[in-house]
C-alpha cells in the first residue's frame, strides 16, 4: 500500500500555531550535532572578528616583544622565538586560515556546481568528457602537485594566491558528488512534471533541483572548506606558504624550524593545534548534522 498505515493523512495536518522560529528552535533540539558544530566554527570566526578589539594585532610580527616568554598576565599565550605575541598571532592568523579555506572551498564548490549539474543533467558526450577528466585528475596525488606549484611561486605567494593554488584541486570532488546527486534527482517525477509544464533544462536545474540539493551542496561546501584548510595548513607547515603572514600553518612551520618542541616552548605549538582540532571538529559536526537533514527519510517525516 502506498500510504503508511499510521494514517499519514492524519499526521499531515499542519501543527497549529507553529511559527518558523519555533520550528527552527525545535529542530535545533533534535539536531544538536549541527548546532554544536556551527557554534565551534562561529566561535573561531569570532576570534578573528572581535579579537582585534582586545588584542593589538600589530604584535603578531617578529620583534614585537621579548622572545621566548612563557604565558603570563602580560602575554596570555607567551611569545615565540622571534618575539611575536602568540595571542596576537592567533587573533591575526585564524581569520587568514579560515579565509583560505573559505575562498578555496567556494571556488571549488562553484566549479563543482557548474560542471556537476551540466554533466549530470545533460548526460551524453558532455558527461563523458567531464567524468573522464575528473576521474583522471583525482588519481593525481594532490599534495604533490600543490607542493610543486607552491614551490615554484614560493617568493611571491600571498594569502589569496594560496587560496587559488588550493582551489585548483578542490573542485574535483564536489563535481563528482554533485553529479551523483543530480543523476539521482534527475528522474524524479516532479522533474518530469516540470518538463510537462514547459520548463527548459536550466530552469529545471535552478528552480526544481537546486532547492532540493541545498543540504547536499552545503555538505559539499563544508567538505571542500575542510579539505582546503587542511591542504593549506599542510603546505604552510612545509614552509611553502606566505612567509610573512602569521597563519596557523606558518606558525607551526616556525615552531618546527626553531625546535619549539625540544626546547619546551609548548605555548608556541599547542595553541595552533588546539585551534586546528576545534576547527575540524566543528566542520565535521556541521557535516554530520547536515547529513541528517539530507537523509530522505528524515525529510519526509516533516
Amino acid at each position: 500500500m502506498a500510504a503508511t498505515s499510521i494514517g499519514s493523512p492524519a499526521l499531515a495536518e499542519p501543527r497549529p500555531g507553529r511559527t518558523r522560529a519555533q520550528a527552527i528552535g525545535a529542530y535545533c533540539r533534535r539536531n544538536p550535532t549541527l548546532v554544536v558544530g556551527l557554534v565551534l566554527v562561529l566561535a573561531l570566526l569570532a576570534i578573528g572578528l572581535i579579537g582585534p578589539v582586545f588584542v593589538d594585532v600589530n604584535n603578531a610580527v617578529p620583534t614585537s616583544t621579548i622572545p621566548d616568554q612563557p604565558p603570563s598576565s602580560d602575554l596570555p599565550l607567551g611569545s615565540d622565538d622571534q618575539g611575536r605575541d602568540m595571542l596576537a598571532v592567533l587573533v591575526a592568523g585564524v581569520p587568514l586560515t579560515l579565509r583560505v579555506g573559505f575562498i578555496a572551498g567556494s571556488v571549488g564548490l562553484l566549479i563543482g556546481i557548474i560542471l556537476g549539474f551540466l554533466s549530470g543533467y545533460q548526460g551524453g558526450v558532455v558527461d563523458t568528457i567531464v567524468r573522464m577528466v575528473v576521474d583522471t585528475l583525482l588519481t593525481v596525488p594532490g599534495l604533490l602537485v600543490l607542493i610543486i606549484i607552491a614551490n615554484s611561486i614560493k617568493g611571491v605567494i600571498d594569502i589569496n594566491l594560496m587560496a587559488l593554488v588550493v582551489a585548483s584541486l578542490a573542485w574535483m570532488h564536489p563535481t563528482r558528488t554533485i553529479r551523483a546527486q543530480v543523476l539521482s534527482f534527475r528522474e524524479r517525477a516532479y522533474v518530469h512534471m516540470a518538463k510537462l509544464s514547459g520548463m527548459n533544462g536550466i530552469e529545471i536545474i535552478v528552480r526544481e533541483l537546486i532547492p532540493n540539493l541545498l543540504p547536499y551542496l552545503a555538505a559539499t561546501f563544508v567538505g571542500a572548506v575542510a579539505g582546503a584548510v587542511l591542504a593549506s595548513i599542510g603546505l604552510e607547515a612545509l614552509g611553502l606558504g606566505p612567509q610573512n603572514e602569521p597563519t596557523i600553518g606558518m606558525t607551526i612551520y616556525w615552531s618546527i624550524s626553531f625546535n619549539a618542541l625540544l626546547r619546551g616552548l609548548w605555548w608556541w605549538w599547542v595553541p595552533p593545534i588546539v585551534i586546528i582540532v576545534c576547527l575540524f571538529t566543528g566542520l565535521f559536526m556541521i557535516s554530520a548534522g547536515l547529513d541528517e537533514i539530507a537523509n530522505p527519510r528524515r525529510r519526509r517525516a516533516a
Partner: protein
Amino acid sequence: MTTLLEARNLSRVFGSGPKANVALDHFSLTVDANASSFIAIAGESGSGKTTLARLLLGFDRPTSGEVLYRGRDMWKMPSRDWWQFRHEVQAIFQDPFEVFNPFYKVDHVLSVPISKFRLARSKADARSQIENALLAVGLRPEETLGRYPHQLSGGQRQRLTVARALLLQPRLIIADEPVSMVDASLRATILESLRKLHTDFGISFLYITHDLPTAYQICSNIIVLYRGSVAEVGDVDLVIKTPRHPYSQLLISSIPEPDVETRWDDDETLPSRSDVTLAPTRGCRFADRCPAVMPMCRETIPPLYHVDEKRAAACFLYRDLPVLLPTGEATPEAVV
C-alpha cells in the same frame, strides 16, 4: 493534419547483444486530433506500457521508429513545436507524492504551467482559473492551496494533478496508472473525474493500467500488451468479455472478481508457471507459456488478425482470417 500523436513502428531496446531487453517491439498507434477517444493500454509489468508512456511524452528516445506530433518527428521538431506539444499533450502519473517538488507548496505545480503557457491575463485571473479547476475535481481551494505536499492526503494530491491537467485543457492526457496508489474509495471518484474531462471537454485519454476492471468501466477501446508486443486490440467489451488471444484469456480469467458465487477452485490446474525469462525469442513472445502453442509460433511473429469487426488478435490460431495490417502495426481507429 488530423492526427495529433502517432507512434509509428516504435521500438525501444535496452542493452544489446544476447542480454538485450526488447521493451517495446514495433508498436504503432494513432490518436486523432478531432475526435476524442478513451483508449486503455493494458498490460502487466514488463509489458512495455511504462516505456510506451515515456516515449510518447518525449522523456526517452526510441531505438527505432518515430513518434510524430501533428505529423512532425518529435525529435526533429523545433523548440516552438515542443512548446505546443507540451501544451497539447499532458500526463497524470502514478505516484501522487513524487510529482510534487517537496520544496514548494502545491500551488507551484499549478502556477508554473499557467505562466509558462500564458493561460492567464493577470494574477487574479490565474487564481480564479486555479480555483475553478480545483472545484471541478471536488477539492476545496481553501483546504488545498498554500499547503505543502506532505500536508495533503494521497487522494487530494492525485485530484490536484487532475485539476492541473484540466487547467491546461490539453487535447490528450496520458494517464499512467493514475489510481493504483490511491485508496479504493477514492479511486472511483478520481476515475469519474477523468471521464468527465473526456465527456465535457472532449479530451482524449490514453489510460495505462494493469487493472482491467477499471479499464473496462471507462474506456471504449483497449490494447493488451504482452512483453512489448500487442496481443489483442479492439472494442473493450469484445476483448474483455470474449478474449481471443490466449494471453488475454489467461489474464482475464485470473482477475479476482468480487463475486462470491464462483470461488477459486483449489484443485484447478493452472497453466504452467510463468517465471518469465527475458531471453529474446524469434516468434510469438507468449509461445513458452501458451497452452495452444504450435511449431509455427516459435518461428515467426504473428500479425494481427481481424478476428471480429471491431477487434484483432495477434495469434496464429486465427491465421485463416484476414490480416489487419502488416506485422505488428495496430490502429484502433482502423478497427473501430
